[in-house]
């Protein structure tokens, strides 16, 4: 089949092959399992790098088409459902991000116990879903991969999690499935209005080209779709799965979930909700803008009083992901570029956070900051890593957080409407609150005197932990130091979306 000439399909095939390979590993030795997992992750990394190269080449060669590497194979002919692949700048960088985090995640769960084999099986099924979501441009396949990515979370948290894991796992799964229930209805609705001449299609590009969804339908399909993705994007008030879920999840799962899975939400919001229903986006945008604005400040404030490390990061994720949706709703290229940068930066640094927390927890067996202190003495590597992650998330120039937030703020403030500008200023306040809770944690956790004498015997990071964290730190620093490289990849991808929004606004103005 000609689809196998497309590199994109291999982002799904490689994880599946890895799963197959893992299935043949024996339950006894962990060595083989590790080998297969590392091999899979490395191949994915290489593929992602090659994809970026291909993309730059294509753009360099003056290929200005909206999606490159497009290819499609009809799947369900009667419903005109295709397996349609294609990437633009945003998907490329998201794939790169996912590859990084999968790679780091494999090493972060090096000593996974019990049942390492099954763990990696589910882990790679999860990443299959993630990659599949980013490479496909057909609503049905996107949705399918989206759910493929959701369900392994249940077992990953339930079996390998900690704390109140049953409750958290069930809650997370059900809430996300609730989101996808909204989403499925939205998708079906979009499908049945996807074209004027009854040639229903699921292909995003065609739907956008036809632009046939009646306004009356947009007005309630847009909220359905946006909320459906917003639940995964931890939008206030649908975020409550995130603290419990992250707190109970094992390290690598928190990394992948906060790092990549939550990005599916933001990605879907502009790729499906906004792009396909620009009219409703213009009409109803302000409602969700207010909600996301709330979740930015709200998440930051509630992070200030948490004492469990993972809860702190879960709430800060609420705040940061809120910023993603916030920027997406600003409807201009700069802000949306900022949103993607924020996805990248939040993905990397939250993954870094969760990796470090997992490593610290693995040593101290507590995540309560009141029981810890002065760890900088004892485990300098982890300490420095944690400080770096903290500085990245409170927006130190030279690390990724700053670039993303500044792009978002400047872009959002470009909006001509005063309401949006005021909201932007309200959102900027989060940088102070972020500083407050990050420094609070750093001070209590790393500085000061050692609270617990037993901690003095603890060891610093082992090689695989160093590798896992170093990968992420380097990525964070690269984005922070050379943002233009990424901006150039991303920003063009939003021209069609912004164009659609402007046309819709103009049409509405005419009417």
């Amino acid at each position: 089949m000609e689809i196998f000439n497309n590199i994109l399909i291999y982002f799904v095939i490689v994880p599946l092959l890895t799963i197959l390979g893992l299935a043949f590993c024996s339950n006894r030795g962990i060595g083989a399992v590790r080998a297969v997992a590392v091999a899979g992750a490395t191949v994915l990394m290489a593929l992602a790098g090659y994809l970026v190269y291909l993309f730059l080449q294509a753009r360099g060669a003056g290929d200005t088409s909206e999606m490159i590497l497009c290819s499609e194979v009809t799947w369900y002919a009667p419903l005109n459902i295709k397996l349609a692949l294609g990437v633009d700048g945003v998907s490329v960088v998201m794939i790169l991000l996912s590859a990084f985090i999968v790679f780091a995640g494999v090493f972060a769960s090096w000593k996974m116990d019990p049942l390492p084999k099954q763990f990696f099986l589910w882990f790679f099924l999860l990443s299959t879903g993630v990659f599949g979501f980013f490479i496909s441009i057909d609503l049905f396949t996107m949705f399918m991969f989206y759910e493929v990515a959701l369900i392994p979370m249940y077992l990953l948290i339930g079996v390998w999690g900690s704390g109140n894991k049953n409750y958290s796992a069930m809650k997370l799964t059900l809430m996300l499935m609730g989101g996808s229930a909204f989403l499925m209805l939205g998708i079906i609705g979009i499908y049945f209005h996807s074209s004027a001449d009854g040639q229903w299609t699921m292909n995003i590009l065609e739907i956008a080209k036809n632009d046939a969804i009646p306004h009356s339908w947009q007005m309630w399909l847009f909220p359905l779709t946006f909320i459906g993705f917003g639940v995964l994007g931890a939008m206030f008030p649908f975020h409550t799965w995130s603290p419990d879920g992250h707190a109970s999840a094992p390290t690598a799962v928190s990394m992948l979930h906060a790092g990549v899975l939550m990005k599916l939400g933001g990605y879907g919001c502009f790729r499906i909700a906004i792009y396909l229903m620009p009219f409703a986006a213009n009409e109803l945008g302000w409602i969700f803008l207010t909600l996301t604005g709330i979740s930015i400040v709200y998440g930051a404030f509630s992070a200030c009083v948490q004492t469990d490390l993972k809860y702190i990061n879960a709430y800060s994720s609420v705040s940061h992901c809120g910023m993603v949706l916030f920027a997406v709703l600003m409807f201009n290229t700069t802000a949306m570029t900022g949103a993607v940068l924020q996805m990248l930066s939040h993905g990397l640094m939250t993954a870094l956070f969760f990796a470090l927390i997992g490593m610290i927890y693995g040593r101290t067996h507590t995540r309560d900051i009141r029981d810890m202190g002065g760890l900088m003495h004892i485990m300098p590597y982890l300490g420095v890593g944690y400080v770096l992650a903290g500085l990245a998330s409170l927006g130190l120039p030279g690390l990724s957080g700053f670039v993303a937030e500044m792009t978002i703020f400047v872009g959002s403030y470009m909006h001509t409407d005063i309401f949006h500008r005021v909201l932007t200023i309200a959102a900027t306040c989060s940088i102070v609150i972020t500083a407050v809770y990050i420094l609070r944690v750093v001070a209590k956790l790393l500085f000061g005197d050692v609270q617990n004498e037993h901690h003095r015997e603890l060891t610093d990071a082992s090689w695989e932990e160093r590798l896992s964290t170093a990968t992420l730190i380097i990525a964070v620093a690269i984005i922070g130091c050379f943002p233009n490289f990424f901006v150039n990849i991303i920003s063009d991808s939003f021209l069609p979306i912004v164009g659609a929004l402007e046309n819709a606004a103009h049409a509405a103005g005419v009417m």
Partner: protein
Amino acid sequence: MPLSYTIAVIAIPLIMFLFLGLSGVKMGKKTTGIIGVIAMLITTILAYGVALTYFFGSSEGQIVDGVRKAVTVFNPDWLTFSDTLVVRMGIMLDPIAAMMLIVITTVSLMVHLYSLGYMCDHHGNAEKGFQRYYAFLALFTFSMLGLVVATNLFQIFIFFEMVGVSSYLLIGFYYTTPAANHANKKAFIVTRLADLFFLIGILILSFYTQTFDFFSNNVNGIIGMLDDPQASLAQAGTTTFMGCSAMAWALTFIFIGGAGKSAMYPLHIWLPDAMEGPTPVSALIHAATMVVAGVFLVARLFPMYVLVQGTMDIICVVGAFTAFYAAAIACVQSDIKRALAFSTISQIAFMMTSLAVSSADGQLIEIHGGYGLGFMASMFHLFTHAMFKALLFLCAGAIIHAVHSNENDKMHGLHKYMPITSIAFLIGCLAIAGIPPFAGFWSKDEILVAAYEKGIGWGIWMTMVAGMTAFYMFRIYFLIFHWKKHEVHTEHEPADQPWTMTLPLIILAAISIVAGFVPAAKLVTWDGTPLHTQLNWTIAGTSVLIACIGIGLAYKMYYKENDLPERMANSCRGLWTAAYKRFYMDELYQFITHKVIFQGICKPIAKFDRAIIDGFFNMLAEVTNRTSFGIRKMQSGSIQGYVYFYLIGVLLLAVITMACVLL
């Protein structure tokens, strides 16, 4: 172009930071220090080269008809927001930038050298984290240099953050001690709050100007825009929000950003606590360089500020008040570093005020070359103050190193133990008190002149503060070195420190003596045109007189041990305690942050999240469960029950649909 090697001035410290930070632990501590000093020495030499080339070189049209223009060495794009809004990372040289290069590198070099001795105990072995210390010093130097040569507002903001972080790291150098741990948090958060306003200011400004650059080569930069009324900046001047023009809002916010770094009232509270850091750090960051970043920022945007009188008045009031407030507190502090910190605040307030007063209208142009005078004075004072305040701090460091305490009751009568330090300190005091011919006299005199031109009241106020300065500095001096005989309470007698520490003192003392004769008026002016200033003897005379009175008073009270201070303190105990407690500003902040924000906002929100939001979703699940329990009786288990159900079901089905459809 010949100035292109300026890049090295920035690059070397950065490289040093990465090098020492990554591979420092592998090397010996002393080696690290020496490498750091050597690198800093090279940087300093290069910086002097740059500054001199800029000031006295006359190549490729730096000087256009007698006006020295700004030179943009290079200016690559760093982050592209939109096709007009681009953040660039560049190097721009103009008088103040060149001057700051000299200040920063000099003080930084001195501190690098000094720390070689200071960061060791008395047996000469270096402290834990020596490499970290030098890495952070390099990081700070890099950030500060990057700040002053910034070509655009956003670059300044970026390096504002960078210096903030490096100061955070250096204050918290002894991170195991709770005080330092608390102080660096406080410093960072307060300055961060200020930076928030700075950011908002930038947003508002760039919304109208559509550029961040000051002088841009392709598009018309912010300051270049001032000339043509067609530019969108004019619109910023007209569009009003809540009565003030957008530009006024922007500039005020930006000033607040500067005020945070420069510890203007009420954002000054972090600076005294920042003294928890090692003393050389205080000398470098919290006396000479970083704290004047705010002044630098206002000076950088000076051409815009002079257009907005309202903002200038705000700055003027804040500055004047802060000067007096800090001086008053400095008069009663017992911790010498705290006292020096407050004197720093007061002196920076001098600079701010002098910037602000200089926007008086133009009838003075023929007298003093226009409203550039205050600007020039401020920059000049910044220069001299950096030198002698660094000197004072380093002396303090030497003393503390000798007696292991900051409290001046542990000192007393050190003169005969450490004479060099004593003399250096005396020179510093004379300089700051403004006694001719020391450096402080010249710069402060210009400030007073500018203040008098703004209005006689301002002049008198500032002169009085100058007198207080003289008083509290000499109070400290006498209390440390004389007052009464020193009783040794450490295992060894206090003595002058090793050469690595005394040499910087001597050098800085020398600079403080001669710095006043630098022709600042010719070089450092806001628009590059040299000013023609002559000493205004009436003003100078009065100020010197007042200063001498202050010194005399201090001599009377503190030279020999007596109970006069006690009695004066008792005579107005309340005032004294209030001043000693810094007028309870810290307590106020404590209340706001902990009681109001933490207890009043964060905790309720967190509770709301768990109870209401989360509770709602749990409630959904609970309701489902209860319903399923409630309807279980339907499945009664008896056949007749089933048939009842069946029959009623089918009849209802028929009837209801019939009703719905037929009616």
